[in-house]
């Protein structure tokens, strides 16, 4: 984190002004209502228009401390910009994401001190995981005067923002600059530090007045098909992490990515943009069943990705390294009781010549870590159960982000972390025991 970070410029001042002036400044603005962190969108855009970029950044970051990364990775098409009333005026919606990056970059990358930190409360809080949920929680608590220590297993902070977001969506430096900005509030980051290995769960719980768990999800588990150990068969998240570390050259490769969600889309689009020879997205169902956002699917298609629907991987062939992905055709069959099942069509086996295969079929839950926290309960899917204030079954432990909702957007994790922080603060100030009703917050 000692290297100088510079933002990838998303908008020139002239572009930003023109765009800012297009905003109607709606009353009870639908963009703000659509934002999980309730950013006052017309308020920050108005300030861009008047040249008050510091005020604009404060408006954003006060609501969402990761405003710079959310500006880049948020699916604005289905959130703020999707709610923009200009859509109904048969105009382009305001480019809220790009404006938000424009407004926050100077402040976040410049480390401009926007917020006062309250006098020390004497309380100490441990935050596990420095992804969006953890960073959000840590920033909020630090601003409130608490002593915050963040434990993270990776070399750099930021979690998926640093390691797991495709480069075409967000550069790594934005994630690192944000973490650095938050460090400015006095947060102590302990990188390369895994709970249960380097720090015991017991020390974590006894060493802090409260703990926030924002550990996200784990790796994409193996599919359990033949050939998965061949050279060139990888976890799509590892592929993206390697890319972000600058260690990958995929020119000339023929790549198949298995899955239909956001990670699969990120991987194929990134691979296509980096000059892979052919990029296939292999999904067992149709376009309508994909979990990826329509705008991301469009972008993948326009980047040259070939979609292979209704196909399930059977095995990977190769001599030491991947040579081809063998699939079955799939189809939906309706049982007598009306249940729709996906089945492989017998005798439909075919093979796609490829040099790389990635699995992007969903991350696994961090079950073993979560089970090591006394009192913490999970649902059947492995998601941490919390109450409305993100407190877990352990009275001293709160949780948020992907480990609670099973994997959603950065902005959802930020909202969780902030809400948990506010409840931790309330609790520590009043010694409140909190609600004991716990449920899934998926």
């Amino acid at each position, binding site marked *: 984190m000692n290297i100088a970070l510079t933002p990838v410029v998303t908008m020139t001042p002239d572009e930003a*002004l*023109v765009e800012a*002036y297009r905003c*109607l*400044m*709606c*009353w*009870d*603005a*639908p963009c703000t*209502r659509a934002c999980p962190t309730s950013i006052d969108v017309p308020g920050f855009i108005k300030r861009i*228009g008047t040249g008050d970029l510091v005020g604009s950044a404060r408006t954003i970051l006060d609501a969402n401390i990761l405003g710079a990364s959310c500006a880049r990775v948020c699916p604005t098409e289905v959130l703020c910009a999707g709610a923009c*009333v*200009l859509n*109904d*005026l048969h105009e382009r919606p305001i480019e809220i994401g790009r404006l938000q990056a424009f407004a926050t970059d100077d402040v976040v990358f410049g480390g401009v001190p926007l917020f006062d930190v309250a006098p020390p409360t004497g309380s100490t809080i441990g935050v596990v995981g420095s992804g969006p949920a953890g960073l959000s929680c840590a920033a909020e608590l630090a601003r409130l005067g608490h002593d915050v220590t963040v434990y993270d297993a990776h070399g750099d902070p930021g979690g998926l923002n640093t390691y797991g977001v495709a480069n075409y969506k967000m550069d790594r430096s934005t994630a690192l600059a944000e973490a650095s900005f938050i460090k400015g509030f006095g947060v102590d980051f302990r990188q390369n530090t895994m709970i249960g290995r380097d720090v015991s769960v017991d020390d974590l719980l006894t060493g802090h007045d409260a703990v926030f768990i924002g550990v996200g999800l784990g790796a994409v588990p193996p599919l359990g098909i033949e050939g998965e150990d061949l050279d060139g068969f990888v976890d799509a998240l590892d592929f993206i992490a390697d890319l972000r570390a600058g260690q990958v050259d995929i020119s000339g490769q023929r790549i198949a990515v298995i899955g239909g969600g956001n990670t699969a889309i990120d991987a194929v689009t990134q691979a296509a943009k980096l000059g892979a020879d052919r990029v296939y997205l292999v999904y067992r169902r149709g376009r309508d069943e994909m979990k990826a956002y329509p705008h991301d699917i469009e972008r993948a298609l326009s980047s040259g990705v070939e979609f292979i629907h209704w196909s399930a991987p059977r095995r990977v062939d190769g001599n030491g390294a991947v040579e081809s992905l063998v699939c079955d055709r799939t189809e939906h069959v309706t049982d007598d009781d009306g249940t729709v099942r996906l089945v492989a069509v017998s005798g439909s086996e075919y093979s796609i010549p490829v040099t790389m295969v990635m699995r992007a079929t969903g991350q696994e839950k961090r079950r073993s870590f979560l089970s090591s926290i006394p009192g913490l309960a999970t649902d059947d899917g492995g998601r941490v159960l919390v109450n409305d204030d993100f407190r877990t079954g352990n009275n001293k432990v709160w949780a948020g982000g992907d480990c609670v909702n099973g994997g959603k957007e950065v902005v959802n994790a930020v909202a969780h972390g902030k809400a948990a922080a506010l409840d931790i603060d309330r609790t520590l100030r009043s010694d409140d025991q909190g609600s004991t009703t716990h449920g899934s917050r998926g």
Partner: protein
Amino acid sequence: MADLSVNICGIESPNPFWLASAPPTNTGDQVARAFDAGWGGAVWKTLGDEAENPIENVYSRYSSIDINGQRMAGLNNIELITDRSLELNLIEIAEVKRRYPDNVVVVSLMVDSNADAWDSIIKQVEQAGADAIELNFGCPHGMSERGMGAAVGQVPEYTCDITGWAKASATVPVFVKLTPNITDIRVAARAAKNGGADAVSLINTINSITGVDLDSFTPRPVVGNQSSHGGYCGPAVKPIALNMVASIAADPFTQDLPISGIGGIATWEDVAEYILLGSTTIQVCTAVMHHGYRIVEDMTEGLSNYLDSKGMSSVNELRGLSVNKVTDWQSLDINYVVKATIDQDKCIHCGLCYIACQDGAHQAIGTKRSDDDKTDVWIIDDLCVGCNLCSLVCPVQDCITMEEREFGQTHMSWNDFTGEDPPGELFPRPKHGITIGE
């Protein structure tokens, strides 16, 4: 295609579009290019007596205000009258008139306040071929401190006297250009008419400071570490100018005085408005400084198409049609009722009408979230005072309109209502706010 030619105090102009005395008419080359582009006339940038009043300009000269990205919604200048020699200007005037005999060249003049000075310069510009002269009694900066320009225009007696001197010398029509930096433009217009003016041109620029550089604290335009008030023009001044034009056109004493209307004109619609309120020709400066002479193409075509759509064969049929529609407030019908109505199919749920009415007007719009989480709005009819505000802020064309309501109410002005024998009842007004004690 309607005939756009006009005659103003005996001068035939191929169309009513003239350039105002300003930077766009600084040189013969410019005026020639303007005539090539389609301008009917040009008022030459003001000439003076360079021996008595040498001219040197400062760096810089112009400043403007931008409104939400619209550049130069208002323009301010501290430029003086021509800084080119009188001899050169006279040669160019003669050359332009030789090449463009059908276009109108009016020459703006400003010299010291003595009859000989006016006589001398008027004779010279007539010799050069000017179709008319325009007395610059309006320049608000630089020259006014030397006892000319607005210093004359702001004193009716001076305006009358100097107009008289000019008329005594001139054989061509004399236009008097009026300053708006007064309290009642009609007094200035009457003084010009009393002095024998053949026509008036208005408005000249308005005293202004467009803004302050927030880093150096120096107002704009910046000259070193100082500034000076300038003359304001451009789209922002049009409403002020229209009112002044209309008041001269309606004044019984000056209603026959031809008017060359000036102030914020950029489009054919602006031109039509000036003509409707009594102008015979119009003059343009800022819009040309912004976009060049080519804007006259739109003016020509647009005005012609408009006249065609109104079934008029000549622009002269349009002149003054709105003059009598401007009246004193006391003469307005206080029983005329309009109410806002919202076309819900067009509404985009921005809530702007709601908040404008709620905080800025008369609390006559209701709102709630719809089932699909949109901001629904509706007019509370019995609270609506028909003020127009919601229709003004609505970003959607024809979404909020004002509907006239007939309740059988009697046409009645304030004067009627407060007179001895009112013709009817006052239509009941909405009641607003919480009454203490109720």
